[in-house]
């Protein structure tokens, strides 16, 4: 039972390590060593495909993965999720999705898991809060074991650091999964409840992303208590804008909703973006991102960068004026806007929406740089 679900754990960990970017097709391949409580380590080969499409108000994500280990870890799983932004209430979003997994492709162990979730998010700039609910069923040995969960949390970004604090209350009848953990003193029986507090911190360095995920668990069943904690670390090294090496390791506690077992793991993978469709291109083409210039009496000029994107989007600009540090744009009437005073001489400016690729404003001369990016060039008289 515990082996098959380890595949879910591997990909959950790798996907957690990966920096999420909109509108892309991403292929990941790697290898992992997994050790569940009370068992020997196993090696597993991993292959995953993720597709994400971003439109003005809808973000669609679909992913599939296969894990091959020539034993019960063999697993196939899939996920489909939609996130919708309301036009009338631009700060509110609803995210829903379904996930499924099939264990034991070689018939050594068989079973499956299905889950559905919904979250409501309130987004304000680079910060927000959410609350959600999820339900799932794990089929094992012909028995359906139900689980449900309620989660809530806050997130925020501060310069190059981002953090998430989440609380999850999970109720489950999947006692086999909990029994697989070494922590319960006795085998649980019937419904049990676990409460998790999870802190995630991510730090972006020049070509490296680092992440740490710490979980504190308190829980009780009919006849046992489950108190535990876990830490996962992950790093992604960008060899180029489209190729990254990721490593992750640590421990994840059992997740009855997704049938993930308690396990320690160490994984390494290569992530390649074969196609990156940029929502900024669409939105700039459709609505226009422009830079206006007005000469200042004391020399130099004021650049007004304006992007007509959705009010709930996250719109940033950077360039020589900011030392290439992203600057959040302000919502002014019906567009995102940023005004900066610049000295005479060549200035380069780029904008991006929702963390996508940086693009030159449409009315400026597009120039590429030595780092594979592009910006708009304007020479201030």
């Amino acid at each position, binding site marked *: 039972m515990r082996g098959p679900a380890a595949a879910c754990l591997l990909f959950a960990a790798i996907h957690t390590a990966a920096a999420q970017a909109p509108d892309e097709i991403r292929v990941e391949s790697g290898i992992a060593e997994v050790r569940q409580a009370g068992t020997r380590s196993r090696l597993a080969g991993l292959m995953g495909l993720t597709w994400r499409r971003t439109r003005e108000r809808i973000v669609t994500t679909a992913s599939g993965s296969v894990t091959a280990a020539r034993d019960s870890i063999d697993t196939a799983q899939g996920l489909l999720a939609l996130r919708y932004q309301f036009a009338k209430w631009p700060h509110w979003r609803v995210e829903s999705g379904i996930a499924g997994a099939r264990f034991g492709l070689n018939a050594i162990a068989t079973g499956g898991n299905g889950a559905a979730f919904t979250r409501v998010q309130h987004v304000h700039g680079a910060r927000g809060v959410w609350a959600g609910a999820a339900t799932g069923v794990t089929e094992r040995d012909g028995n359906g074991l139900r689980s449900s969960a309620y989660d809530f949390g806050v997130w925020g970004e501060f310069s190059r650091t981002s953090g998430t604090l989440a609380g999850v209350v999970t109720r489950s009848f999947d006692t086999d999964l909990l029994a697989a953990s070494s922590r319960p003193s006795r085998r649980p029986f019937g419904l049990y409840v676990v409460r998790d507090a999870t802190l995630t911190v991510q730090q*972006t360095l020049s070509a490296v992303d680092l992440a740490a995920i710490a979980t504190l668990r308190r829980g009780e069943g009919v006849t046992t208590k489950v108190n535990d904690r876990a830490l996962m670390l992950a790093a992604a090294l960008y*060899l180029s804008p489209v190729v990254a090496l990721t490593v992750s390791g640590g421990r994840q506690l059992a997740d009855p909703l997704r049938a993930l077992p308690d396990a320690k793991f160490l994984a390494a993978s290569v992530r390649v973006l074969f196609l990156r469709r940029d929502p900024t291109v669409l939105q700039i083409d459709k609505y226009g991102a422009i830079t206006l210039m007005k000469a200042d009496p004391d020399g130099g000029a004021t650049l007004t960068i304006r992007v007509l994107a959705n009010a709930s989007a996250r719109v940033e600009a*950077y360039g*020589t004026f900011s030392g290439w540090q992203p600057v959040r744009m302000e919502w002014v009437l019906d567009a995102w806007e940023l005004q900066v005073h610049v000295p005479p001489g060549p200035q380069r400016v780029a904008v991006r929406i929702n963390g996508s690729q940086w693009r030159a404003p449409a*009315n*400026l*001369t597009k120039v590429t740089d030595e780092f594979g990016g592009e910006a708009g060039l304007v020479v201030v008289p």
Partner: protein
Amino acid sequence: MTLRRLFLISLASLAAASGSRAQVARLDASAELGLRRAVERELVAARAIGLPEGLLIAKANEGIAKRATPRRITDAVAALGKRLQVAREQLAPNPSEDEIAAGADALYVGVPAPILKKMRAAWPNRSLAFPLGVLTELVAKGLPAQRAAQTVTDLMARGANNVQLFALAQSVQGDVAAGWAPEAALDLRARGVMSLLPPAPAASAFTNPRRP
């Protein structure tokens, strides 16, 4: 005397070392140690030949902000150092830092180095920073460097000011965005600016005498 000289030399060395550290300290704080050392080597080399270090640091910080690999950042900084050196030579005898930076930008988009020398010869006593910026913008739009340089040089020789050069670049940008061929747009807009300028000095007529 010897001790005093040693003391002064030590003071000068300390000042130079602290200056070097100050420059490197301006690098983005997240720069890795290896990158920091590589950039420092480039800064020392640039300082030795009197190139503006601030531009090299800005380039390194740009690479860091864009999450480029240390190797790519180091290569970009080294390449910029070479372009700055070429620009300074071509814009001799006394180019300003802005002119050197604008010349390096022009070289980056594909303007041949001798064109910088020709522009300096055409405008020896005024700053070339803005004309070089306009030239860079025109070439980046897809105009042939020789053609763009000839147009800018002609306008400079006729006494065009920075505002007129800026208007030229903006107009060409608008025309290209509207679907015009870049060369056709440049010809049209250059003629428009020319029409606002005073006639060419008499010397030009002698240089290009009209046949009867």
